[in-house]
């Protein structure tokens, strides 16, 4: 049942490994669907290119939303959860048949959703706000997918319990698994919210109940929609810690504080349903202020802690190897390792683009100048794409040799891939944010209003950002296609990995304690402190700019 990994020394349950593989492979399949849709969307959204007609634009947008935001990420996360709860703990998979059941439920749900969308029976976009109604098969697909995912998450807990009982871990989990545990707890809350709202919506689509209150739907739907992204957040950060550990032997400066930061997510992050309701009727400003700020921004505090701890883990390890200058540790980092570069671009992009804009979009009043503009998808390109997706791409470069036991084909191209994808998405996100500030709506086919009864002209500065949008979008699509190409070729046709000598991507053990003149300064990571200070200045600048922009609008109360 077990094989012993000749590279890491882990005991790998083969039955669990098969489940990890199949979930990861289907994650990539759905990612491909999302990317094909993304290509058409980029070239349709540009106001003068319009590759697709309107109905296909909205249909592809629905398709892209589900495949990119849910299927790709959740399948990959389920693979990650199984990996973190079996391989990392040298433990066995609690119940492989149930693992397969979860997989087929998710697959069935995903296929059903994609089928109804492509049939044109669910042009309702990802959010499917009632009274907009899709075919009942669509809601059935959502339920099947959610139940499958829920089962997968429960199996993660079961694996942990089995491992504990069999003595595979004693007092504390490794930080990676601990982070995944956070993600899994958030996932339970999320998926239960999903069931609460999609069961009545499903019955409504069948005509069994006659109405779903649109505002109630919004409140509970965003209990799925937003926290689902917080699962990604916790999983992404776990992956960052893991890549730092594998690529430079980085260890968090303080286990206690890093774990506390994860705990803050569990406690507060699910309040973020409010982020989508800040300019809604029916919910009061007091409710909005408390919830949107995750109770005084305590979940943001968690993210700011990780934003320090992860680069610091790299810096501390590098300093022990003798890199003393303020940024020598970073300059001498393994940039040729695609997992490391993916992690670092993901970290910087998430912080500077996704995180900062998220806080400002999620403020009760400044949401007025953001809600449903292109700045909103711009923000989540900066979180879930440059952040989660790129982090997952990075860790895949380790999974190919370690789990799939294959060599990475075109390894030299793999080194370029994170840059192509990361910089492309950064350009795309920044242009969407800028367009949003100019008032350009999201999910809109024709902002030139060619056939509308009235015209509106946006600030002509938008044309610069539309050009950036297309350039960024296309290079991100190319980066994604390149990654899929490398992964698929390696996994299915790559040369078999015979042993440690075939590892192209290095696993660097943590450095020994410093031998010559250990530093006595009380500041252990001056480089990270400098970087985080630059980040903080940017954060506060952006904060005050937003209030300045808001104060230039009409008065409203």
């Amino acid at each position: 049942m077990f094989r012993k990994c000749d590279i890491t020394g882990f005991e790998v349950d083969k039955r669990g490994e098969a489940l990890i593989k199949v979930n990861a492979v289907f994650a990539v399949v759905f990612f491909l669907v999302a990317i094909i849709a993304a290509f058409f969307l980029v070239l349709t959204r540009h106001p003068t290119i319009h590759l697709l007609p309107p109905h296909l634009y909205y249909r592809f947008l629905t398709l892209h939303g589900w495949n990119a935001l849910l299927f790709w990420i959740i399948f990959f996360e389920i693979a990650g959860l199984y990996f973190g709860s079996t391989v990392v703990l040298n433990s066995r998979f609690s119940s492989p048949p149930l693992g397969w059941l979860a997989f087929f439920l998710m697959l069935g749900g995903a296929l059903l959703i994609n089928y109804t969308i492509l049939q044109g029976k669910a042009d309702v976009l990802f959010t499917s706000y009632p009274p907009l109604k899709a075919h009942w098969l669509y809601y059935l697909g959502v339920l099947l997918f959610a139940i499958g995912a829920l089962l997968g998450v429960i199996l993660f807990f079961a694996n942990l319990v089995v491992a504990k009982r069999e003595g595979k871990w004693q007092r504390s989990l490794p930080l990676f698994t601990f982070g995944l545990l956070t993600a899994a707890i958030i996932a339970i809350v999320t998926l239960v919210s999903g069931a609460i709202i999609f069961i009545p919506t499903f019955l409504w689509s069948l005509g069994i109940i006659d109405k779903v209150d649109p505002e109630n739907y919004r409140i509970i739907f965003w209990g799925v929609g937003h926290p689902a992204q917080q699962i990604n957040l916790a999983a992404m950060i776990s992956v960052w810690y893991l890549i730092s550990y594998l690529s430079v032997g980085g260890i968090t400066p303080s286990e206690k504080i890093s774990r506390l930061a994860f705990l803050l997510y569990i406690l507060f992050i699910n309040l973020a349903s409010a982020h989508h309701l800040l300019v809604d009727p029916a919910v009061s400003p007091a409710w909005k202020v408390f919830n949107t700020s995750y109770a005084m921004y305590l979940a943001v505090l968690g993210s700011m802690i990780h934003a320090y701890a992860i680069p610091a883990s790299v810096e501390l390890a590098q300093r022990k190897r003798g890199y003393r200058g303020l940024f020598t540790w970073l300059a001498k980092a393994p940039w040729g390792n695609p997992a490391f570069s993916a992690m670092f671009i993901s970290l910087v992009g998430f912080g500077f683009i996704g995180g900062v804009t998220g806080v400002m979009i999620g403020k009760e009043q400044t949401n007025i100048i953001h809600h449903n503009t292109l700045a909103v998808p711009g923000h989540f390109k900066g979180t879930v794409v440059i952040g989660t997706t790129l982090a997952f791409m990075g860790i895949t470069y380790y999974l190919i040799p370690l789990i799939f036991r294959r060599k990475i084909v075109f390894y030299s191209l793999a080194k370029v891939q994170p840059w192509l994808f990361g910089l492309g998405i950064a350009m795309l996100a920044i242009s969407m944010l800028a367009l949003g500030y100019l008032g350009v709506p999201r999910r809109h086919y024709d902002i030139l209003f060619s056939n509308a009864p009235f015209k509106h002209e946006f600030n002509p500065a938008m044309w610069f950002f539309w050009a950036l949008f297309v350039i960024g979008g296309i290079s991100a699509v190319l980066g994604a296609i390149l990654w899929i190409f490398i992964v698929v070729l390696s996994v299915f046709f790559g040369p078999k990995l015979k042993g440690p000598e075939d590892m192209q991507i290095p696993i660097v053990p943590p450095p020994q304690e410093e031998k010559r003149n250990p530093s006595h300064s009380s500041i252990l990571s001056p480089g990270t402190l400098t970087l985080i200070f630059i980040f903080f200045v940017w954060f506060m600048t952006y904060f005050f700019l937003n209030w300045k922009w808001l104060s230039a609008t009409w008065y409203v109360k």
Partner: protein
Amino acid sequence: MALLPPPENWDKEKPSKDEKTWVYIALFSCFFMFFWMIGWHIFGKQNTSFVSYKVNPMEFFQLHSSFVEKYKIGEKNGVPVVKPPPESDVILLARMWSWSPILVLEKDKWYTFHISSLDLQHGFSLQPVNMNFQVVPGYDHVLKFKPTKEGEYSIICNEFCGIGHHLMIGKIIVIADGETPEKYLGEIKTEKNDFAEKGDFNPSGK
């Protein structure tokens, strides 16, 4: 230790001075950002509303019709142009795929907007000032606005509402002292033409 269990005494270790400093700075900025939002409710001029009502879409439609009838000054591209007095209630109706009516407001005067939808959810996006609010059928979103600058403004729909979503656009005209709406709208058709009795207005929105 991302992959291995942490050292036995991990919860006893003292965090380094630099990390502690950062955590305190971060915590302070979190509290600062939180209280700023409350402060903006006291000192700021742009806040979301405390008032909204449940409303039957049909009743809201009737409110809209009588509002239009009362203050109508003309018509543009088939949409009534309405000039309510300052400080009054304004009814703005969203439906697939239009905003009604075209409003003529005076600069620096307060108006109480009631915004709702006859059919699907819509997004009230006022351009170019870029103010955005959600419009939900069954809910009367009450917002008090004071336009601060004269000019022609567009209301774009920024919530997906079906295949004609991108055709949904309305207008608000803000006039300064001594200006007429024609300055921005051009010729307005002014024959008395009762909008509510035209008969081609199907409230169910189908």
